[in-house]
Each structure stands twice: as structure tokens, then as C-alpha cells.
């Protein structure tokens, strides 16, 4: 039983030890303010990473999420500033467009039996391209509701606060954990990722699940786009480039296997916090250059993959299976 959770435990241990090391070096690190900022700064990434975890659990991949975030911010800016829409109706429209876009990709992947990698790559080009067509400039959003939403936060003593983006991310992660482990959809997802043929023979609605999981990923990318536009107060078609890789990295560090069928949403969340922790540490240190973030994350990625491989080898050596999930 314990070995099912071992990757997750190791990831959590790295986060805790890393945080303690940071706090030992910089006493100001262990404050609610730093933790609150860590959550706020990574909120849009966290929301996207949840969708990515679902897609990867189902045995696929979604390269379009960064582009969908960028497109959503531009769409919001154009609708609110140039179209005169109320932000709430613009939010609804953006979510519908992003979710529909994901569903369309899922349908193409399922109906035409195409590799998800290349279909979502095309989706990435389409979403970025549509964003460019809407506007190549960064459009500031000046609606009063944006200022109000930006101020909205749960405040704690000592200057710490949980902003709306951070709360949204925590809500999404909690809902995703429930969805992955205690719903029919979640079970179908794991079955599909574990073995598509067996899942199909077991009666898992493969087509519906595939479409739903990409729709969900698109929807969450749309939500992340809304959060991103709240965070930056603008819409820009080049926003959030490379987010797909950041989220895939978080998923891998979180212990989910890219072959699908095995992993936890909460692991992704912890993986994301580790990435954020490295970034915060480098900001705190001040003398380290920003490229060390990339190198550190690359090394971390390598170590975690090796660890997973090692664990897998130990399990298969014993004749056991890595996971019955």
C-alpha cells in the first residue's frame, strides 16, 4: 500500500525540506505573506496544471493550454474594452469558447485516431493565431470590477493574504481531487489511461471521456486565462508562452506518469509549489541569475524521473505492479 504513495511522499518531502532550508537561510521566508504570494503568483499555472494532469492521466497530452490562456486574455480585453461587455458575461463567453475549443480537439483526437501531441500542437497554433488576429498589442483592461476583484482577498495577521486567484486555484485543486478519486468520470479516466483497449472492453465510454477530458483542460485553461488577466490587468496574445511545459513539468515532478493511468492531482499541486519555491528562493537570494531557475527545474525533473524509474524497476523486479489504480 505504501509504495503506491511513495512518489507522492517523496515529492511532498522535497517541498517540506526545501521550504525549511529556505526558511533557515532567510527567516522572513516562513511568513504567511510569502506563502500567500507563492499561491497567488502560481494560481493560473495551478489551475492549468490540474487540467493537464487529467489529460495526462487519460494517456494524452495538451500542448495548447498556454495558447488558450493567451487567447482568453485577449478575448476578454477585446470584449470588455472594445465591445463594452460586462466582465461577467465576458468571463462566461471566454469559458464557453475555451471549453468548446478543448472539446473540438478531443473529438478530433478520438474520431480520427490522431496522436494527441500533434492535434494539440495544431490547437496551439490555432489559439495563438486567433489571439494574434484579435490583437497583437497588449490591451489594458480598466473596468472597475477588475480593480474590485483584484482587491478581494482573505487577509491574515502579519500582511499575509489569500487573493481571489489563489482561492480559485485551491478550490479547483480540491474539486479536482474529488473528481479524480470519487466520481465515475475519474475512474473512467484512470481506466482509459491505464489501458485503452481494456477500458473500451470494460464499457468505459472512451469517446465521451476523451472529449470530456480535453474540454475540461480547455475550460480550466480558460479559467486560468481569466485569472491571468485579473493578475496582469491586461490582455496580450503572447501571454503565457511556454506554460504548457511548466505544467507538464509540474505534473511529472508531482509523480504522475506520462504514459497515463497513474498519478495524483495533489502531486501536481505540490510539484507546482516546488517550482514556485525555487523561483521565490532565487528572488530572495538576489545574487543568483534567473537562468538558474531553468537549470534547477531541469535537474529536479531529471532526478524525479530517475526516482520513478527506480521505483518502477523495484516493483517490477518483485513481480508486483506499480499501481492498481
Amino acid at each position, binding site marked *: 500500500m505504501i509504495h503506491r504513495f511513495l512518489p507522492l511522499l517523496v515529492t511532498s518531502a522535497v517541498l517540506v525540506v526545501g521550504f525549511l532550508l529556505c526558511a533557515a537561510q532567510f527567516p522572513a521566508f516562513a511568513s504567511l505573506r510569502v506563502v500567500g504570494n507563492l499561491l497567488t503568483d502560481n494560481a493560473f499555472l495551478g489551475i492549468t496544471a490540474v487540467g493537464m494532469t487529467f489529460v495526462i492521466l487519460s494517456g494524452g497530452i495538451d500542448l495548447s493550454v498556454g495558447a488558450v490562456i493567451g487567447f482568453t486574455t485577449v478575448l476578454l480585453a477585446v470584449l470588455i474594452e472594445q465591445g463594452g461587455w460586462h466582465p461577467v458575461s465576458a468571463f462566461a463567453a471566454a469559458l464557453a469558447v475555451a471549453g468548446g475549443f478543448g472539446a473540438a480537439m478531443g473529438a478530433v483526437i478520438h474520431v480520427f485516431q*490522431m496522436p494527441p501531441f500533434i492535434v494539440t500542437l495544431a490547437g496551439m*497554433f490555432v489559439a495563438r493565431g486567433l489571439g494574434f*488576429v484579435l490583437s497583437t498589442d497588449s490591451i489594458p483592461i480598466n473596468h472597475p470590477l477588475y480593480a474590485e476583484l483584484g482587491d478581494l482577498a482573505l487577509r491574515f495577521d502579519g500582511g499575509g493574504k489569500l487573493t481571489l486567484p489563489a482561492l480559485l486555484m485551491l478550490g479547483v485543486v480540491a474539486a479536482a481531487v474529488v473528481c479524480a478519486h470519487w466520481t465515475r468520470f475519474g475512474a473512467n479516466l484512470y481506466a482509459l489511461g491505464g489501458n485503452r483497449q481494456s477500458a473500451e472492453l470494460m*464499457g468505459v465510454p472512451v469517446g465521451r471521456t476523451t472529449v470530456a477530458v480535453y474540454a475540461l483542460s480547455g475550460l480550466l485553461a480558460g479559467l486560468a486565462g481569466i485569472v491571468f488577466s485579473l493578475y496582469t490587468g491586461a490582455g496580450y496574445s503572447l501571454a503565457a508562452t511556454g506554460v504548457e511545459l511548466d505544467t507538464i*513539468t509540474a505534473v511529472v515532478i508531482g509523480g504522475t506518469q506520462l504514459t497515463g493511468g497513474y498519478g495524483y492531482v495533489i502531486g501536481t499541486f505540490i510539484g507546482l509549489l516546488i517550482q514556485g519555491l525555487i523561483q521565490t528562493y532565487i528572488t530572495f537570494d538576489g545574487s543568483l541569475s534567473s*537562468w538558474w531557475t531553468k537549470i534547477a527545474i*531541469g535537474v529536479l525533473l531529471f532526478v524525479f524521473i530517475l526516482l520513478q524509474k527506480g521505483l518502477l524497476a523495484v516493483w517490477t523486479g518483485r513481480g508486483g505492479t506499480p499501481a492498481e489504480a
Partner: protein
Amino acid sequence: MTRSAPGPSRNLPQYGALAAVLLANWLLFPDFFSIRLQDGRLFGSLIDVLNRGAPVALLAIGMTMVIATRGVDLSVGAVMAISGAVAATLTQAGWGLLPVLAASLGAGLLCGLWNGLLVAVLRIQPIIATLILMVAGRGIAQLVTEGQIVTFTSPGLAFIGSGSFLTVPMPVVITAVLLGVTALLVRMTALGLMIEAVGVNRLSSAGAGVNTPVVLIAVYVWCGLCAAVAGLVVAADIRGADANNAGLWLELDAILAVVVGGTSLLGGRFGLLLSVVGALILQAMNTGILLSGFKPEFNLIVKAGVLMVVLLLQSPTLTLFLPRPAGPRPAQPPVRPPTPPRAKPESPSPSAGA
């Protein structure tokens, strides 16, 4: 589809597409095919397509073989940045041309070796294995240049990017030479066959006596070398190395070129020349959009459209509805186990609802 219809007809879609794009460019821009000689170098839109398509074509040559082994190399853009950074930094430090070239290509070889070891020895999925270098590589390139855009004035190195040999621009010459050398290496020896065998089924090719780790490592090393050459060409062209932006997202363009060229992402049969043709199709479209006065913003959407059409033509579902080419069908088993008809398993299951 790509593997069930051997023969010359197989390559027609790619050449046809290139011809169609060039023709469309010519209709939009009547001077498209005019080439003039000036200062001992050819100029013209067609030359421009070849010249600007060279970096992606170079990447596509290496990427083709990686994809043929059923892998993918996401790190080529980062490797370009590394090789450019090494070349620019060492040139600025006063090294000669040959040591600089050797160091820069050596860096690419090392990157390829790292990827190859991860895939072949540690058996990490290629997409993840190369993701590591994609993330870390750009950091390494920035480490080499110390975050600066390093410029140089060495005419020898700049010649690689902007010079010409027998009136042909150097990037085009380099691409042609690398394509020729690669084609000789894989087609005149059994290497090409082994690469395809590994791509179709790694286990059974190992059983048949193919040294799969060596083949895989060789393929990734060659891909790293191609990426280093592409990085050199780009750095030499702009006489500087920008670790942040050199080769950014070019890995996706290279994969796209290979897929448009008809090599399946599921591995197996590959066409080096076709991948280069794929890169040229993409570049010709790009040039056409710029020439026709459309906003360059449409480029990405057009690219996605082409990609979808090519994929649809190769999709197993769609080929069921298309007429088969005449002649007996080779009795080859499909690469993937055929998926059972979807309608069957869904209907009888009681739990399918909800």
C-alpha cells in the same frame, strides 16, 4: 496509409503541396520565380525561401530519424541556443574559427548523447527525456552567455550565415550537404533499416539482433549535431547569440515539417528529403503570406490548417472512406493493434451511462 502504399505515388502529396504553394505565391506575386545574380550571390524570393527555410530544414533532418524510431526530440531549439552561445562566446574570447566550430558542434553532440543515453539506457519516454534538456538547455545557454546577447565580428564565422558558395547562400549549401551526408549514411548502410525497425517495434528488432541502444543513441546524437549546425547558421546570420530567443519554438516547426513530410509520429518508414520538402512548404507559405500583404498573424492559423489536412489524410479513420490505390495491397500488419469498432463495446455495457 504511409506504409501501405510504397512507390513513387506515395510522395506526390508533398511535392504537389510544395508546387501548389509556390504556384499560389507566383499568382499573388508575379516576380516570385525571378532570380538575379548580384555581387556573386543569387537573390530572389525563391532563394529567400530556401535560405530562410534552412534552419528548420536542418532540424528536420535530425528530427526525421528520431521520429522514425518512434521518439521525438523537444530539445533541438535549446541545443540551437547552446551551440550559438558557445560559438559567439568563444569567438569573442578570441578563439580561431575551427576550434569554435568544433566546440560548438561538440556541444550539440554532447546534448544529443545525453538525450540518447536517457532514452536508450535509462529507457525514459523520449518526450520527457528531451523535455529535461528543453527546460534546462536554455538556462545553460544563458549561463554560457551570462544572460547577454553576445555579438561578434569574425568574418569567418559570419560567412556561414550570410556568405555564398558558387553563388548559392551558405545555409542552403550546408543544408544540402548535411542532407546528402545523412542520406548516404542511412541509405547506403543498414542503419536506415535498423532505425525503421526500432521504430516499428523496439522489442522485436532487439530480438532480431539490432543493437537498439546504439541505434537510438546514434539517432539522438545526430539530431543534436543537426541542431548545433542550425544554431551555428542562425547565430552566424545575425552575428550574435541570443540565448533567450535563438531557436525558440523551432522544435515544434521541425516536428511539423517532419509530419508534413509524411513521416508518421508512430515511427517506422521515414523520408529525409520529404521532411526538407515539408520545411520548405512551411517556409514558402510563410513567405507567401508576407508577400501577399496578409497580416503575418494569419501564418499560425494557416500552418495549423495545413497540419490538420495532412493529418486527416493519414488518419486511419478517414482512409477507410478513401479509394484504395489500384493493385494488390501488401499484407502488412498495422503498427498499432487495430482498435475494435467503437460501436460494439459501448452498447452492451450497463455501466456506460452516467
